[in-house]
């Protein structure tokens, strides 16, 4: 029983992590909460639905295509809604993000539809029992994809040239620019990666719950945003850890306290943690500086 709860929590934790990474990375470089991010996740589910309906696209191809589509969507949102707002108070950019969020979810309602749609299966679902533990192939796919994506991200951020540029940009944009790096381009890369990961999460969740709807980005986005804060916003390992913890709290809360109280319990725990440690687990406070 306990093991089953942990595995369920882990599954949701992985989904939150894929979304939370985007919140955290964008906050790292631009210091605002991109509220349109949850809707990019929803669009990931919509693209997944569109590819699934085509019927002849293998799962892996659909995943990669979805990630590219949502990645480009994120880059477009940044270009249209945020780029010209670099030197204004952050609250203005946040308002722009809320606007972008509404535009994206409205667009989905017009293009995809206002109902909840079932996703045609990419593959047959098999069930496995290990002792008392019941797992299905969807869970394996979700866990496997999330873990691989997070490992790749970790490699990319710590080892690659662009990963270093992303870290430099998140510490000091002005200085990074003076070191010869076009920070606008780096911010586009950041948005592409964050949005591609959220898109992957959307597709995986759409398949997992067999449900896609235009408002699904709201709650998932809120929870992932919370997880990012819990881990210490701006920190990549923080976003991962915060999401795993949130997934477990929600899973245990849903089982032992009330199935309809899952989110409430998760957010209550968040408030308690933040009262004790306001910067989250890995947050060092705001050391950001944009001055020369």
């Amino acid at each position, binding site marked *: 029983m306990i093991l089953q709860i942990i595995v369920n929590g882990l599954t949701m934790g992985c989904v939150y992590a894929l979304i939370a990474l985007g919140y955290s990375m964008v906050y790292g470089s631009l210091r605002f909460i991109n509220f349109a991010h949850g809707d990019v996740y929803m669009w990931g589910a919509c693209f997944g639905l569109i590819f699934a309906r085509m019927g002849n696209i293998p799962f892996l191809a659909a995943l990669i295509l979805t990630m590219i589509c949502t990645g480009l969507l994120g880059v477009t949102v940044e270009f249209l809604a945020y780029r010209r707002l670099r030197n204004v108070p952050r609250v203005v950019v946040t308002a722009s993000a809320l606007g972008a969020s509404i535009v994206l979810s409205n667009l989905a309602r017009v293009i995809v539809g206002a109902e909840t749609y079932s996703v045609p299966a990419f593959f047959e679902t098999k069930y496995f029992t290990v002792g008392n533990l019941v797992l299905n192939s969807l869970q394996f796919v979700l866990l496997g994809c999330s873990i691989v994506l997070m490992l790749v991200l970790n*490699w*990319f951020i710590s*080892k*690659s*040239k*662009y990963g*270093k*540029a992303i*870290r*430099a940009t998140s*510490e*000091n944009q*002005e*200085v*990074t*620019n*003076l*070191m*010869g*790096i*076009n*920070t606008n381009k780096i911010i586009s890369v950041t948005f592409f990666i964050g949005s591609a990961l959220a898109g992957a999460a959307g597709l995986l969740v759409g398949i997992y719950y067999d449900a896609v709807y235009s408002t699904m980005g709201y709650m998932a986005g809120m929870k992932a945003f919370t997880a990012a804060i819990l881990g210490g916003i701006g920190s990549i390992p923080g976003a991962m850890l915060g999401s795993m913890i949130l997934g477990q709290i929600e899973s245990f809360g849903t089982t032992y306290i009330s199935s309809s109280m899952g989110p409430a319990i998760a957010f209550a725990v968040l408030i308690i943690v933040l009262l004790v440690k306001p910067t989250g687990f890995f947050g060092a406070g705001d*050391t950001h500086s944009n001055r*020369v």
Partner: protein
Amino acid sequence: MLLEINHVTKSFGGVVATNDVSVSVPEGKILSIIGPNGAGKTTLFNLITGAYMRTSGTITFNGVKIDTMKPYEIHALGVARTFQNIRLFKRMTVLENVMTGMHSRIKARDIESFIPGRSQKIEAEITEKSMEALKIVGLDGKYAEYGAALPYGQQRRLEIARALVSDPKLLLLDEPAAGMNINESAELLELIRWINAELKKTVIFIEHNMKVVMNVSDYIVVLDHGSKIAEGIPKEIRNNPVVIEAYLGTKKEGGNADA
């Protein structure tokens, strides 16, 4: 002329930080900019590197008009700098700090850095160049440490390595000896000379220590309240009554004017 600053003015609202300044820097020389605090020395660096946009005037580097360019575009032409208040990336190692200076110098397609195998080759090339730059400033043994954990003098040297790694034509050093003891600043002096003589870099530096300035400069520009009040070879500056009054106070000989 490698760098030509022509009647450049920069005002912030009503405050004129740089007032109609013209400076010509020939290739291969060491030029120093001196002046009391608030004279507009760092502002001039910010104007050259594109951190600030001039209000009027023109700046030409190597025949290219750079006064409306973005910082990364100016860097690409071969202008690199250090900062008066050290601006290292605190959450990066010594080596990674230097590697950021090489980012734009690797001629590879962007997509290649996303492919694991190709990325490693690019990384190896950047690492090699960065280690060379660290060796020049004597920090190659500390590559794995965090930049912010180094002693102050070494942080300044690390900033020089980060600027040097991009192989710039012009190196701008903003108070490179600030906070250093006598030994450290003597070593730094040697380093600047060596960079100029062996690596053939043109150097402009801002400095308060008159001993360093007089020893190392081919040419000196004196700023006060945003305006250029004098320029010339060290001997001329040392004996220029306007400079002595504005900057050196009552001292006749060029002692330490830091006080």
